[in-house]
């Protein structure tokens, strides 16, 4: 079957979608967007977290056909005001909150959602919001640091950060 949806702000279409396949498979294998990661395929690890109509969800637990006509934003779609990195991405780089990097895209989306809802989260808020994102390198302390520093960074100043300048690390 064919599935059409907006992905990262662009209208996209995928043909030959098997009715039982997940939105995660559709994004990675049919639309060439490997940002959201495939790990547990049962909603335990959060590494496939994407926005679906504005809510963070596990893409592995959404049927591809359920995304028809919906709006999907994956980690590739998060950008700062200048088109560079979002403040959450920048904070993860700055804090060294990335070890093997497999959990990072899902964490970035989950943190992006947290900060959109709660501008100055407590540590308890952060742990609760990230309870569904596993880091098997166990790098949680640096992740906590990154979330605290992203929260302290107004979204509009992300452009001033060296890493998000055009030509900086992407």
């Amino acid at each position, binding site marked *: 079957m064919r599935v059409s949806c907006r992905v990262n702000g662009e209208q996209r279409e995928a043909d030959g979608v098997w*009715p039982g396949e997940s939105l995660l498979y559709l994004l990675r294998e049919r639309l060439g967007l490997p940002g959201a990661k495939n790990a547990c395929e*049962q909603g335990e690890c959060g590494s496939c977290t994407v926005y679906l109509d504005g*809510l*963070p969800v596990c893409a592995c*637990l959404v049927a591809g056909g*359920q995304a028809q006509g919906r709006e999907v934003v994956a980690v590739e779609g998060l950008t700062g005001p200048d088109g560079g990195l979002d403040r959450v991405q920048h904070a993860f780089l700055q804090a060294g909150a990335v070890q093997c990097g497999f959990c990072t895209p899902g964490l970035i989306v989950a943190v992006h959602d947290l900060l959109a809802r709660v501008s100055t989260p407590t540590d308890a808020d952060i742990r609760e919001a990230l*309870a*569904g994102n596993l880091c098997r390198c166990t790098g949680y302390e640096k992740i906590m640091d990154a979330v605290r520093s992203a929260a302290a960074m107004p979204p509009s100043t992300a452009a001033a950060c060296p890493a998000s300048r055009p030509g900086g690390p992407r």
Partner: protein
Amino acid sequence: MDFLSPATWAEALAAKAANPDALPIAGGTDVMVELNFDRRRPSALLDLTRIGELTEWGTDGDLLRIGSGVTYARIITELAHRLPGLAMAARTVGSPQIRNRGTVGGNLGSASPAGDALPPLLAAGALVELASTRGVRRLPVAEFFTGPKRTVRAPDELIAAFLVPSHRGPHQFAKIGSRNAMVIAVCSFALALRPVTGEVGTGIGSAGPTPLRAAQAERLLADELPWRTAAVLPEAVVGRFGELVAGAAAPIDDIRGTAAYRRHALSVLARRTLRWAWEEYRREGP
């Protein structure tokens, strides 16, 4: 495999009547795991996420009627005052990502004895509303489950909603697991006190082939709690309540815990939730 995507409830019921083997999918948090792991290959998926009325809730006479597609996240943000026990259970479901998708209707349909929403629905005396092209029927949630992952739902029926009587009074829920998030309950327990009528509701999760009520334990509290004086809880009643709840369970040994541990933990949860609920009653009245 077909993907059926009805736009209205009438279309959904017609599709289910024409394809009784079609597997309904809403949040997908159970169904997609089974598909991803090749455990299930239904003839069709019946997507219910485009039917707006399943995501609505409102009053129906003396009942609160909640569409089967209302997510755990919305139970927490929109219904915590009206359904405090269910909201407590909803907060323990999965993770934020799971609560944004998972629905109470899905919990009922999957009918796992470990479904977190089910003990609070039992304790609250909820009804399940089933619909088909043949008509609509409502039955107590206690009569809905027939075994592990089995219910009285006929192949052509869909779960439209659940309904909860608007009783006032303290509700509690507690769950045992290895961490706070992403845990399938080792066992769980829900308690509802209805001081106006002097009734009590209970629900036991993950300790039997279906979610269970503890009827004898309910009668004990209804008869023995000092409702009128709101006096301090008699210790003998607390202890006996724990024993009766543990006795009502029918647990097995499995990967998450032993039957003996579950019975012990249930007696602890029963005593604990009773103390919390009674403290609330003494503080705030009926």
